[in-house]
């Protein structure tokens, strides 16, 4: 094991998969000499050349469209969207083609493509550049959607995403790029479709979507002082959802709080709440609670932006309310 940056773990996954499999190539805006807007593809152009690290014109629809075509004919493209916000221009290609081609070709053709989507708020990038779009991709049959929160999973999930024959929407929280964590030295894959219990607890389960896991862990620490023992689950996979891990935890703690940065109306948390009441109704001691972003476009002002996204204090407050306590002064 060695401690690595989240961004370095992503880069390692790309490097190792490109070395292992010649059909893997990268395409995106400013990913060559520049090394990507977030430095994830740094040095890969020098190593693999222009055929495998392709700097594209600013045209997201055709970047994804060309990758879909390449994937259908045997290559394994990894697209870097500069940010998830720009993927809207390629939404038609993703929804109408990537997600449906296997089905429409009767299973004879697949689209083994990964689209990497840096996203989330917290950088004063304002209304159009701060989205969390897990839902937008999570509700499309035919797409796998994952979102790592540790360097280990960043690497392991990206490698799995490159190897699966399904299109994968790979959601990256920009705020995590400079976080550190242990990454195994040996070759490993993190399976798609499995949540991870990050902290064991007895009183309630806090389920974090993407970066919210980090906030949930900080909240769990504070909840200890209030004598509340929280279990924290890292969702990791938005589609498919790992019902077993979620339901097992709820059966143990009887309370579930789901946290996402995106808007809660029709959110990932709504889907989880619906599924949990169906699978574990008799175990619940309180309604499933959820915390999400304020239902507004992201404000530019730093303080207002903070107010518009969940904080660990919000999670503490929500958790205490669920176990019938108030925040102590």
């Amino acid at each position, binding site marked *: 094991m060695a401690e690595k940056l989240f961004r370095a773990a992503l880069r390692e996954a790309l490097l190792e998969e490109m070395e292992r499999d010649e059909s893997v190539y990268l395409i995106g*805006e400013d990913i060559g000499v520049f*090394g990507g807007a977030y430095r994830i593809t740094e040095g890969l152009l020098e190593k693999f050349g222009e055929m495998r690290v392709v700097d594209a*014109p600013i045209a997201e629809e055709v970047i994804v469209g060309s990758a879909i075509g390449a994937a259908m004919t045997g290559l394994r493209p990894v697209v870097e969207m500069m940010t998830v916000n720009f993927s809207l221009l390629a939404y038609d290609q993703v929804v109408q083609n990537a997600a449906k081609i296997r089905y429409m070709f009767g299973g004879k053709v697949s689209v083994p493509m990964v689209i990497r989507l840096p996203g989330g708020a917290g950088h004063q990038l304002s209304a159009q550049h701060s989205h969390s779009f897990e839902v937008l991709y999570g509700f499309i049959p035919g797409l796998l959607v994952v979102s790592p929160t540790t360097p280990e999973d960043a690497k392991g999930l990206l490698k799995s995403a490159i190897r699966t024959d399904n299109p994968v929407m790979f959601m990256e929280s920009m705020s995590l790029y400079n976080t550190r964590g242990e990454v195994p030295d040996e070759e490993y894959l993190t399976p798609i479709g499995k949540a991870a219990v990050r902290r064991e607890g007895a009183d309630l389960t806090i389920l974090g979507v993407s970066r919210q896991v980090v906030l949930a862990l900080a909240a769990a620490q504070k909840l200890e002082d209030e004598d509340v023992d929280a279990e924290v689950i890292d969702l990791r996979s938005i589609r498919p959802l790992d019902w077993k891990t979620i339901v097992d935890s709820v059966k143990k703690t009887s309370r579930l709080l789901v946290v996402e940065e995106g808007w809660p109306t029709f959110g990932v948390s709504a889907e989880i709440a619906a599924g949990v009441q169906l699978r574990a109704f008799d175990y619940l001691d309180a309604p499933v609670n959820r915390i999400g972003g304020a239902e507004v476009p992201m404000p530019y002002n730093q*303080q*207002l932006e903070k107010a518009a996204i969940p904080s660990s204090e919000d999670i503490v407050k929500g958790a205490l309310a669920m176990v019938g306590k108030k925040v102590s002064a």
Partner: protein
Amino acid sequence: MFQLLDPAGRLRNGAKPPLDDEFVLEGLRWMMLSRAIDARATGLQRQGRLGVFSPVLGQEASVVGSAMALDPTRDWLVPQYRELPAMLMHGYPLHKHLLSKDGVVMTYFGEGASSEGDFHEACNLAGVVKAPVVFFLQNNNWAISTPRQLQSSAGSLAERAAGYGMPGVQVDGNDLLAVNQVSREAVARARAGEGPSLIEAITYRMSFHNTTDNPSKYQDPAELEAARARDPIRRVQAYLKGRGMWDEKREQEFEQAISEEIEAAIVKAQKAPLPNRSQIFDNVFAELTPRQAAQRRELLGEG
């Protein structure tokens, strides 16, 4: 490429001065203001007092020359993010515009943005309906780190206009007089109901993309040097000097006035009240939805 002033600020081939000197001086003032704001805003960003900032540096003639071809009382200016002097010049008097019948739209975008499908769709539709639009493409050679030749194999981006049934012209974007002339022609054409035009201003981004960028990673320093020799501000100053309208004293007066104007604006901005947390829910809908109302109560600790 259409040009009136050569890089040394001399009128080409004995051309007559196309604009009166006061107008050119006014243009120069906007250009110098723009450059001074770039320096000051970059400094503020480095001190952590301003968010991400995109300078205009190198493109002042292109932005100012075109914006000065518009009539602020009735025309629309639809900028990208690198047109600060044009925005200062025109403000946003939306109410006037929405009522004006013979207004023209000048819209700005980079050569990078012109690779997007919606640019082509917009040009095509504008051509079909003869919309009164001037498509002003600032070709500054860079889209963040991506050079112009990676955006298109077309020798000239202006030539694309033929495909949309509109005229297209390439102009020296570092020549204030030339930019203003082709812009006036395009605006007049639009105003007369003859339809849209595409202007490709050849210029050069002499600074970073924005304050998060570091061009030394991808830019050949020789290229930047060559661009400096074509500096749009020095070109206008040289031209005005040749006409007896510019000297060191005048330059100092301009710089002094500009600096005072900027400092006053910074003081004003610093005095502006900080927004309140409760305001984040304003202006999303005409009135709050029930969930927004609940979120707002929670944010303000009202249960």
